[in-house]
């Protein structure tokens, strides 16, 4: 599936919720279902700066696609990560770099993009794009 298709699906799913509580309950569920990174692998070099709760993110190149794994201390943050991973993991670096992220607004999570929230949704997105940029230049060299 393309990044755009996945984003469409997510927007459709979120449209089913009536209020913020259902949205957040869903994100909490997603957070709980996100595979954990084992504690030994949670090294400081994987930490994303700018998050109020600690977030570790790893990116591996499998064939020509990037596989993201991430974890956080906070469950809502994990829910947000789970959504981002669903969108961007198993995608080619150039697709990740050119993807637009307006779906975040459409599913009512735009408030988490505000730098004052310091929860790092913006930082996580940036980090994913940095990894994509790094792997893209690796692939093209």
């Amino acid at each position, binding site marked *: 599936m393309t990044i755009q298709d996945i984003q469409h699906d997510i927007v459709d799913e979120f449209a089913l919720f009536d209020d913020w509580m259902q949205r957040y309950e869903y994100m909490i569920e997603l957070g709980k279902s996100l595979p954990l990174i084992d504690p030994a692998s949670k090294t400081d070099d994987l930490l994303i700066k700018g998050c109020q709760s600690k977030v570790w993110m790893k990116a591996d190149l499998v064939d020509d696609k990037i596989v993201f794994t991430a974890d956080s201390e906070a469950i809502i*943050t994990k829910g947000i990560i789970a959504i981002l991973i669903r969108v961007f993991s198993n995608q080619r670096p150039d697709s990740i770099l050119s993807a637009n992220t307006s779906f975040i607004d459409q599913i009512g999570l735009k408030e988490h993009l505000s730098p004052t929230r310091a929860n790092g949704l913006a930082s996580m997105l940036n980090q994913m794009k940095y990894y994509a940029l790094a792997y893209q230049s690796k692939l093209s060299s």
Partner: protein
Amino acid sequence: MTTSSLFFDVEEIRKDFPILNRKVNGQPLVYFDNAATSQKPQQVIDAIVNYYQNYNANIHRGVHALSQEATESYENARKTLQKHFNAPKVEDIILTSGTTHAINLVASGYTKFLKTGDEIIVSALEHHSNIVPWQMLCERTGSTLKVIPMAQDGTLKFSAFTQLLNDNTKLVFVNHVSNTLGTINPIKKMIDATHRYGAKILIDGAQACSHVKVDVQALDVDYYVTSAHKMCGPTGVGLLYGKTKLLETLPPYQGGGEMISEVTFEKTTYADLPHKFEAGTPNICGGIAFGAAVDYLNHIGLDEIAAYENDLLIYATEQLIKIEGLRIYGPTQDKTAVISFNVENIHPYDLGVLLDKMGIAVRTGQHCTQPIMDFYSIPGTVRASFAFYNTKTEIDLFVTAVKKAVMMLA
């Protein structure tokens, strides 16, 4: 526990704060982040608007009417602050951009006085703004930083403090009230102990001044600093009180206009206090509004405020501790109306996000006090801090919201 509510009409007081009428995420705002900054009453907002609408001018130099009115109003605010803090002289009050600026002003000045082997003592309860400037001072001078340890209950170990004091101690820095835990430190005892070794002490009053009446002469404190914005005043203004003879010997912090007496390219002589430390055009409007804020607090009465807030603190504590797995950090007595807590297996950030969705503003995180978080081995806390315009009804809404959030996160 008090009869404060008989004299204290919170509904009347709330009418002074227009922001309390607004909604957040469709819910009436419950503002429990007062330790970060307080809300502003109409009287302070009016002082700001009145200044810009009617007599905005630069001060201390103009001969025209507006400049004189602005100068008079600014200097009257300084007198209000002098009186409020009971400083011996009006020039002992230096207006700064806030507590952090005031601390840095003193720390910078001591570069000249300290040498290798000298010791500086800070407490484990300090805000980063009262740790980092002293670390930088130690780096510049070769002095050593010592730390007063804290106990499990969030109080400082006073006996450990007296053991740290010695003839090499030159400076002690401690906050009056901990921003994270609300601990009221025994500053009078600490000031007296410090003076027995001939050292000087700076008290960071940022978290105290909206709850406690401070008398700098009764305390015999060397330096006292605070910010207006936690006292119903605007951001960007605060003060440094210093004993006259100490301020006279302390070198200027920044060079510029206002702070000079004579300038030639060979030598500049500095202005007298307080202008020596007030380089450049000050925050004129902020200073005037700071005065208005102190007048407002005194109109309500700090003793009444303290008693009422203590009622809120006790009420909220009683409700919160009924929640399973909830732990409050900090002392049970001698604290301001701050509750720093966590719920077992729940990250404070998650709780904060859900409370916000329910219209409740709290602070989550480390509160710029990483050493306290490390002490308790926690990533952060949820901090609810109350002010005299908060109500028990709001506490009920807050407690219900915490329960709901815990249910969602469990």
